[in-house]
C-alpha cells in the first residue's frame, strides 16, 4: 500500500518573500558566531561563501574562492532560506498504528528503529537491512555511514545516489588512469585553455560559476539540445540521443586520419592504442554522420580545434555517462584525449564534471557497494585487512560487495532482498529510474527510515523520519570536483530537536550493541579516523587536517601523512604529470565499440526522451522546490519539444501532455523549442508525483558501472485535457 499522506502540520503555508526580504522566517536560528567562511550546499563546484548572521537574518555573499571567483548562482544566493524553510523537519516522526506519522522524541524513534532492525536481522540475516547514502553527505558522514553498515549492521547492502551520477566516469577513469578523481587538475587550469570539448555537460545551467573558467576557451559542446552552454559554444554538435559513443569513436578516427595523433606521447605514456584503433577505424566520418546526425564537416572542425590547441581539455558530464554504455562512452572520450596527448600534461587533460556537492568524497569513502574508504576495493584482501584493523574488527567479519543502487531498490521487499532500508541524504522516490516501481518497493518494506531535513517524497513513505542538521549548522569537510578538500563550517545552532547524522549513527550503533567509541559524533574525531583509514589508499587524506584547512591551505588528495621530520605533504593539485597510477605508469586505451541504446524508437514510441536539469532546481528538487524564488522560476514539470513534433501530436505551447514509455507515463507542460531535434523531447527530473520524469526512464544498467540509462528512452507524447 502506498502511504503518501503526510500530516498537515509539517506543511504550513509557504510565505512568499521578495529578493530583499529577510530570508529568516518563523524561528530565529541562534548564531554561534557573527560570520563564517564556508561553501554553498549545492553542487560539486562548492563555491566559496561568507555566511553572516545579524539582526536575526542569515545572508550569504560569494567569496573570491578559486572555483567561483566571486560568483554565485541563484541557488547559492537563496540557500539560507533552506535553513528555516517552513516545512523543515523539526522533530523525529514515527508512523503510528493509525498509519500516520506523528512527532516523537529521539529515544523512542531510535529505539523503534534499532528494535525493528534487530528483529529483522535475527529473522532474515544482516543483508536484510540495507543502507542508501548520498553524494551530499560530508566526508565524515559518508565514511561513518559505510562503517555503520559494515560493522554495526554487518550488511553488504549499501550503495548511494552517486551511482546515478558519475559512476560511469569513475569506472572508465579508473581503468584508463588507475585512479578516478573528477578533475585531476585545479578547475582554474581551464581558464588558460584554448579549446575545451564538453561532452554531455551543461554547466551554464548546472554549475553556472564554472563558466567563468570557460570564457577564454573555444568551446565544443556535444548535446542533443541547444542548451545555454551550447549557445555559448564555438561549435555545437547535436547528436541523436544515445549515439555519443559513435561520435567519440568518429572523433578518434579523424584524429588519426587527419594526422593529429600524438605519436611520441602514445609511445611514452600509453598502452593499448592498437586495439582501440581497430574499433575506431570502422567509424569513418560518413558512417558516424549517418548514425549520429552530426555533419562530417563539424566532426572535422572539432578535431582540428582540439588538435590545433596548445592547451585543450576533454570533459564529460551526465549526458555522456548516464547510459547503458556510459562507461564505454566515457572510455572513448578518454581515448580521444589520449590520442591527442592531453592527459597528464599541465594545461591539458581529461576530466569528469562531478555533480553533487560531495560527489567526489562520497564515492571514495566507503558508501559504495563495492568500496572501502580510501577508494579501496572491498574485494581486495589487503584493503580489507587494512580497514578491518582501523575499525578493530576481523577482516572476515567485513561483508563483501552488495547490490548497486537500482538493483538494491528493485530487490527491496522481495524474497532474498532487504526488508529494511535506512536512507540518508537521498530521495530515490524521485531520482531512481522507473520511480513508480521504486516507490512501490519502498512501500513494501517492513521498515523504511529516512534522515533528511525536509519531508522529501521518500521521507513521506517512511516509518521513521529523523530530522538532521544542514550545511550552516554543522562542521565537516567536503571534497569538490577537483579533489580539493574543503571545510564546511557552522554558523548557527540547529533547531533543538534536530541532530547530526553522526549522532544518529552513534545512537543506533550503541543500541545495536556497538561500543560507543567506534562511532564518534564529533566531525573532527571522525576525520581523524578517516585519515587513518585512507592512509596508503588511492584517495589518501592522511596528511590533511582541519588545522591545515583552516589555515587556508589548498589540499587536493592524495595528500599522505609524512614523517614529522619532514614538511607536510602539499597535496596533489595535478595528477599524472609524471606517471599514471597504473603499476607501469602508463595510461590505458580502451577498445570499445558503439551499440544502440537499449530502447530505440518504433511506431508505438516514435520519439527519444532525454532527461536533465534546469538552473533553478537541484536534484529531485526536495530543497529547491521549497525556496520560493527558485520554485517560481520553474514551478512545474515541463517537456521541451520541437514545434513540428508538437503539432503532429496535436499539442500547443502551454498544453499539458502525457509522455509515455513502455514503463510508465509522466505529465508535463509543453514548451516549444525550435532548436531541439524533431525526434527528441526533453524533461527535467526535479519534480514529484505524476510529474516525475523518472516514471518513464529505462532501468537497464551499464554492465560495468551499473548506471541506469537515464538519458535515452523511447516515448510517445499525447495531449491530456486540463482538469476543469
Amino acid at each position: 500500500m502506498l502511504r503518501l499522506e503526510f500530516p498537515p502540520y509539517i506543511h504550513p503555508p509557504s510565505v512568499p518573500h521578495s529578493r530583499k526580504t529577510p530570508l529568516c522566517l518563523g524561528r530565529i536560528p541562534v548564531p554561534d558566531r557573527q560570520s563564517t567562511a564556508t561553501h554553498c550546499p549545492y553542487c560539486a563546484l562548492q563555491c566559496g561563501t561568507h555566511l553572516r548572521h545579524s539582526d536575526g537574518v542569515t545572508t550569504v555573499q560569494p567569496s573570491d574562492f578559486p572555483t567561483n571567483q566571486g560568483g554565485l548562482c541563484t541557488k547559492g544566493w537563496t540557500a539560507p532560506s533552506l535553513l528555516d524553510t517552513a516545512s523543515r523537519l523539526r522533530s523525529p516522526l514515527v508512523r503510528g498504528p493509525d498509519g500516520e506519522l506523528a512527532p516523537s522524541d529521539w529515544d523512542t524513534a531510535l529505539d523503534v528503529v534499532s528494535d525493528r532492525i534487530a528483529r529483522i536481522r535475527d529473522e532474515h540475516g544482516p543483508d536484510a537491512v540495507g543502507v542508501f547514502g548520498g553524494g551530499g553527505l560530508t566526508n565524515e558522514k559518508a565514511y561513518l555511514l559505510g562503517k555503520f553498515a559494515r560493522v554495526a549492521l554487518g550488511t553488504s547492502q549499501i550503495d548511494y545516489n552517486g551511482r546515478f551520477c558519475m559512476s560511469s566516469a569513475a569506472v572508465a577513469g579508473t581503468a584508463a588512469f588507475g585512479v578516478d578523481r573528477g578533475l585531476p587538475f585545479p578547475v582554474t587550469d581551464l581558464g588558460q585553455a584554448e579549446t575545451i570539448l564538453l561532452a554531455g555537460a551543461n554547466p551554464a545551467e548546472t554549475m553556472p560559476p564554472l563558466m567563468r573558467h570557460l570564457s577564454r576557451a573555444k568551446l565544443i559542446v556535444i548535446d542533443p539540445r541547444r542548451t545555454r552552454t551550447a549557445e555559448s559554444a564555438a561549435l555545437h554538435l547535436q547528436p541523436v540521443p544515445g549515439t555519443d559513443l559513435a561520435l567519440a569513436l568518429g572523433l578518434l578516427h579523424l584524429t588519426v586520419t587527419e594526422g593529429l595523433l600524438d605519436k611520441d606521447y602514445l609511445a611514452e605514456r600509453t598502452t593499448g592504442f592498437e586495439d582501440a584503433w581497430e574499433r575506431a577505424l570502422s567509424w569513418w566520418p560518413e558512417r558516424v554522420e549517418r548514425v549520429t546526425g552530426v555533419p562530417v564537416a563539424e566532426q572535422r572542425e572539432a578535431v582540428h580545434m582540439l588538435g590545433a590547441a596548445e592547451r585543450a581539455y576533454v570533459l564529460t558530464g551526465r549526458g555522456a555517462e548516464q547510459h547503458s554504455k556510459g562507461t564505454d562512452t566515457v572510455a572513448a572520450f578518454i581515448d580521444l584525449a589520449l590520442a591527442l596527448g592531453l592527459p597528464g600534461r599541465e594545461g591539458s587533460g581529461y576530466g569528469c564534471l562531478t555533480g553533487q556537492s560531495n560527489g567526489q568524497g562520497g564515492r571514495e569513502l566507503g558508501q559504495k557497494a563495492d568500496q572501502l574508504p580510501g577508494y579501496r576495493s572491498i574485494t581486495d584482501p589487503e584493503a580489507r585487512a587494512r580497514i578491518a584493523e582501523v575499525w578493530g574488527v576481523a577482516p572476515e567479519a567485513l561483508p563483501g560487495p552488495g547490490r548497486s543502487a537500482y538493483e538494491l531498490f528493485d530487490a527491496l521487499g522481495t524474497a532474498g532482498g532487504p526488508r529494511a532500508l535506512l536512507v540518508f541524504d537521498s530521495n530515490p522516490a524521485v531520482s531512481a529510474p522507473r520511480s513508480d516501481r521504486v516507490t512501490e518497493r519502498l512501500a513494501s518494506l517492513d521498515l523504511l527510515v529516512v534522515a533528511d531535513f525536509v519531508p522529501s517524497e521518500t521521507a513521506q513513505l517512511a516509518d521513521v523520519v529523523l530530522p538532521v542538521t544542514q550545511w550552516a549548522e554543522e562542521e565537516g569537510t567536503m571534497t569538490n570536483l577537483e579533489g580539493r578538500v574543503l571545510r564546511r563550517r557552522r554558523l548557527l545552532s540547529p533547531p533543538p530537536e534536530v541532530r547530526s547524522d553522526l549522532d544518529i549513527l552513534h545512537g543506533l550503533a550503541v543500541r545495536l550493541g556497538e561500543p560507543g567509541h567506534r562511532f564518534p559524533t564529533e566531525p573532527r574525531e571522525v576525520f581523524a579516523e578517516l585519515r587513518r583509514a585512507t592512509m596508503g589508499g588511492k584517495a589518501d587524506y592522511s596528511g590533511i587536517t582541519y588545522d591545515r584547512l583552516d589555515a587556508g591551505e589548498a589540499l587536493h588528495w592524495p595528500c599522505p601523512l609524512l614523517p614529522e621530520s619532514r614538511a607536510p605533504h602539499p597535496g596533489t593539485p595535478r595528477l599524472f604529470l609524471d606517471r599514471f597510477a597504473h603499476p607501469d605508469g602508463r595510461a590505458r586505451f580502451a577498445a570499445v565499440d558503439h551499440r544502440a541504446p537499449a530502447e530505440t524508437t518504433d511506431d508505438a514510441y516514435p520519439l527519444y526522451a532525454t532527461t536533465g536539469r534546469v538552473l533553478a532546481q537541484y536534484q529531485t528538487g526536495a530543497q529547491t522546490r521549497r525556496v520560493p524564488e527558485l520554485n517560481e522560476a520553474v514551478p512545474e514539470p515541463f517537456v521541451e519539444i520541437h514545434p513540428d513534433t508538437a503539432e503532429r501530436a496535436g499539442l500547443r505551447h502551454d498544453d499539458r501532455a502525457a509522455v509515455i514509455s513502455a514503463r510508465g507515463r509522466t505529465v508535463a507542460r509543453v514548451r516549444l523549442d525550435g532548436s531541439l531535434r524533431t525526434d527528441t523531447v526533453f524533461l527535467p527530473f526535479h519534480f514529484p508525483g505524476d510529474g516525475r520524469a523518472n516514471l518513464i526512464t529505462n532501468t537497464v544498467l551499464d554492465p560495468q558501472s551499473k548506471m541506469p540509462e537515464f538519458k535515452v528512452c523511447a516515448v510517445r507524447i499525447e495531449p491530456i485535457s486540463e482538469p476543469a
Partner: protein
Amino acid sequence: MSDILIIGDGPAAHRLVERLRHHGHQDAVTVLGREPGPTHSGAPPLPFSGHSSPYQHGFPEGTRVRRGVTATRIDRARRLVHTDDGTAHGYDTLVLATGARPRVPDIPGVLTAEGRLHASVFTPRSLAARECRPAGSVAVLGAGAGGVEAALALRRAGREVALVDAASHPMKDRLDDAAGRLLAGILHDEGVETHLGHVAVAFEPGKLVLDGGRVLAADVLLLCTDAAPETGLAHGAGLSVDCGVLIDDEMRTDDPRIRAIGGCARHQEGGGETAYSLPQAWDQADTLALLLTGGRPHYRVAAPITRSRTPGVDVLSLGPPSALDHAAELVTLSDPSRRRYAKLALHDHKLTAAMVIGLPKAIASLVQLYDRGVSVPSDRLALLLGTSSVGSGTVELPDDAVVCNCNNVTKRSLAQAWHQGAREVAELAEATRATTGCGTCADAVRRICGVLEKASGEGDAS
C-alpha cells in the same frame, strides 16, 4: 561442430570473422583469399589519402587463412570447395564473400596478352593505388562517385589528374544536369581536367588516347568503372543469381548451407540494385555472425545512400533519382555561385529521394530522416540551410527578457535598480545579483546601463 568456410577476404569477410569471434564462435573458420598478400579489412579510407596502412588488419587469431588461392567449384553434395591449387575444403556452412570486380573496359593496352591488368593500370581497391604508387600523371576512367572521389584525392595529393567519362556530367546515374554541372565546376576549380562525353580508345604507359584523337598524359590509368558482382562460383553451383547471388533475410542462398554477403550478394527485396556499400556489407556480416552463433537478429535492407567522402565536397544522393521527376512535393534550391544545390522529393512529409550539393548540415539531417523514415521539419528551407527555425535574437530586448539567467534577473528589474541609483555593473550586481553567476551577461548589463543613461540624458535635455 560447425566449421565455417568463407570465400573472399575483403571487408565483409573480415567483419564476419571478427563478429563470429566476438559472439563466441569456437569452431574452425577458414578463409580463402585470392590475393597473395593481406587485403584491406574494413573502413574504406579515402583513396590515395596516404592513410591506408592502419586499415590493414589481420584476421583474428585462430582463423585459417589461405592466400593466393582461387575457389573453382562448389560440390554441394559433398560440401566441398575445390580450388585452383588442387586442394578441397569441407564446410558445414559456406559463406560467399567474393565481392565485386571492376568491369575492365575493352581498350587496347589495358590488359596484357595473358589477360592481366597492365602494370600501369590499377583499380581503386588495390593497396598500391591507395598508397599513391607509382608516381606520375593519372587518368581516371569513370566519373561515378568512386571516380570523382579518386580524382579529387589524387589531385589534392599533387598529381596531374584527368577524369574521363562518356557521360555528359559526373555521377550521371545519381545527379541531374544542374547538379552535375555544379560538380563539374567543383572538379574544375580543384584542378581536375575533365573530359566528359568522351571514351578512351587506347592506352599505353604515358598516354591515353580518346575518341576524336585527343591524347592525355597518363603514367597511370585508374579504372573507376562500375563493378560486377562475382557470381561465377554460385552460378556454377546452380544457385539463383541475377545481378548478384540472391539471398533472403538470413543471407541464405537456395542452399541453406550456403550464405552470401557483401558485394556479391543481392537481397531478394533489394529493389533491383546490388548497391554495394560497406555499411550494407557490414550489416549483413553482423547479422550472419549473430545467426551462426545462435542469435535471432532482425535484418532490414538498408536504404541505398550515396554520400561523397571528399572533405569539403559534399554530395548526396538518396533514393531513386526518378522519384524526383514525379514527386508529390518537390523542394528545390539552386545557388550556383556558392555551388549549392538541393532537390528533395517528399511524399506525405517523408523523404523519397534527394540530391544535394554543398549543404553539409542538410546532408547530415537528410540522411537520418531518410534512413529512419521520419517526417521532415515543416520549415524546409531551414532544414536545407542547417539553421533552426527559431528567429534570431531581437535587438531591442523586451522588458521581461531575462538578462542574467543564473539569477533570473529581467531587464525590467535592472532598469528599476538603475533608477534607484545603481549606475555601475557592480552596483547593479549588488542590487539584483545580475552578473554574479557565470558572469557572461556583464556586457549585456553594461549595454543596458548605456541605453538607460542615454535615455535619461535625453530626458534631462527635454
